[in-house]
């Protein structure tokens, strides 16, 4: 759709990469008075070339590299890379490792949604929400430090074959206490706040047929009315044994996405309680992978794996030609579709004051757009 000019008083504004409200991503807005006429996305400030870097490293070294694809949900990207390598080699992961992986992936989803809530609040002016969200997120980062050894970068904790270390015994008592605190915070924040309703209702409306054509996935398309979730459509790990719901709304505006953010956090807490209750004993890594080896070959073939990360649907396509290193890796990030076609479509004929509300309600991560 080509943009059109409205009058002769247009000027161009860079909502740029060094702006405190936009992350490492820049949007060029054409503005006439107070109305945005059209927008053009300008990506590429964080392009590191992961797909080429992964062709020259062994799978265990790629596991350390894969948590930098999107730092805000590092364990989820570790998981999808490990699943792709395991399906190529043809190895079955032990049961205890699958339960531990589900617990870590859901903790990572709660932590990422807390960042989404905090940043959406400060974008629309509610500073207390930002402080609450980042304060409660610190309890989860302390849990990561206990289990994986680092607060933000878990250094390939979920590696091909299982997990790198076993779950310590003190973690099983600490996790329910942290989840109780987070449930109390979500109850407190869910109350209807007239500031949020005024700034977010009927802003950035995305209808269902536009969402499918533009390639939106995850919470963005669930807010427009389609009931879909990769954890229910093609279950991976042990998600088919747990009982949880998928929240859906019909309006498609920013307030619907905000409500879905809070409800998904509650469902993740439910999944973790069920997983902790059913955690079995046994090995935490497959026997072939427990000692690190430099010359394990991957048989010829190709595989495409889909997972549900916090921002939408992620995909990894891996091709191997019989050597020790992968031949071609293609990473499909959810934010690549949310921040370029969907944002250019939504930012036509809106007020300038609505631009942060629309941008932050799409929950885009510039790191997983550029990779």
């Amino acid at each position: 759709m080509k943009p059109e000019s409205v009058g002769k008083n247009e000027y161009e504004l860079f909502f740029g990469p060094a702006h405190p409200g936009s992350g490492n991503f820049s949007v060029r807005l054409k503005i006439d008075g107070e109305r945005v006429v059209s927008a053009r996305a300008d990506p590429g400030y964080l392009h590191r070339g992961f797909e080429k870097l992964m062709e020259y490293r062994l799978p265990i070294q790629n596991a350390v590299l894969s948590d930098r694809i999107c730092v805000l949900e590092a364990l989820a990207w570790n998981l999808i890379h490990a699943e792709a390598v395991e399906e190529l080699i043809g190895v079955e992961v032990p049961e205890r490792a699958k339960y531990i992986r589900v617990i870590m992936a859901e903790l990572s989803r709660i932590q990422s949604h807390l960042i989404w809530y905090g940043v959406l609040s400060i974008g629309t002016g509610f500073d207390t929400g930002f402080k609450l969200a980042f304060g409660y997120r610190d309890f989860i980062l302390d849990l990561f430090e206990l289990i994986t050894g680092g607060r933000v970068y878990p250094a390939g904790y979920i590696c091909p074959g299982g997990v790198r270390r076993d779950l310590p015994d003190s973690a099983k008592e600490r996790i329910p206490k942290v989840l109780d605190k987070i449930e109390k915070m979500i109850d407190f924040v869910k109350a209807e706040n007239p500031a949020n309703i005024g700034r977010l209702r009927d802003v950035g409306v995305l209808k269902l047929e536009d969402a499918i054509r533009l390639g939106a996935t995850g919470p963005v398309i669930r807010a427009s009315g389609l009931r879909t979730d990769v954890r229910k459509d093609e279950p991976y790990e042990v998600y088919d044994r747990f009982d949880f719901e998928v929240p859906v709304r019909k309006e498609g505006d920013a307030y619907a996405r905000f409500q879905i953010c809070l409800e998904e956090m509650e469902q993740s807490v439910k999944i973790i309680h069920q997983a902790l209750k059913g955690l079995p004993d046994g090995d935490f890594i497959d026997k072939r992978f427990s000692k690190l080896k430099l010359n394990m070959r991957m048989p010829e073939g190709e595989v495409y794996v889909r997972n549900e990360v916090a921002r939408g649907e992620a995909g990894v396509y891996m091709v191997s030609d019989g050597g020790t290193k992968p031949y071609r890796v293609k990473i499909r990030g959810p934010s690549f579709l949310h921040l370029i076609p969907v944002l250019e479509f939504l930012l036509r004929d809106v007020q300038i004051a609505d631009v942060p509300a629309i941008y932050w309600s799409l929950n885009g991560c510039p790191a997983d757009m550029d990779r």
Partner: protein
Amino acid sequence: MMEKEIIDEIKKKFGVEGFMQRERRVIVKIAPDKLVELCKFIKDLGFEHLSSLSITDWPKRGIYEHTYHVWSYKDKILITIKTEINGDKPEIDSVYPVWGESAQIHEREMHELFGVEYKGNPDLSPLFLEGWHEKPPFRKDFDWREYVRKNFYDKENDRERVYFEEV
């Protein structure tokens, strides 16, 4: 519909035999001039979400292999469509008329990184790289070690001397 019915429908109309790799995965290979017709056919069967689009280049065989992954929300099956084009003059028809903007943005990225022309794509301007005057960087015959050593590293520096030795 189940996987076997989809394979039979495609065989009836186009004469190519797909195969089932595992549960929920079907792979179909086709020639590049019938590509857009096959894509329109499966979109009418309910496959409306283009998940990803990728290129693999095989310099020994001299071809560029395109892979399209399409998901159906109704039947919950993923079809992988593969075509091969010649490596000397790489150009192919775009699938923008079938799947809209989600196909257009993926093709823009592949044009910049591999150098393949897409006929019919409305906007193929550069996406990530700025002021790049060399070969498309993701091809197998682009020597990235030479490029990095010439532009970024200094042989006299003690900490960077490691990068000039062979791996």
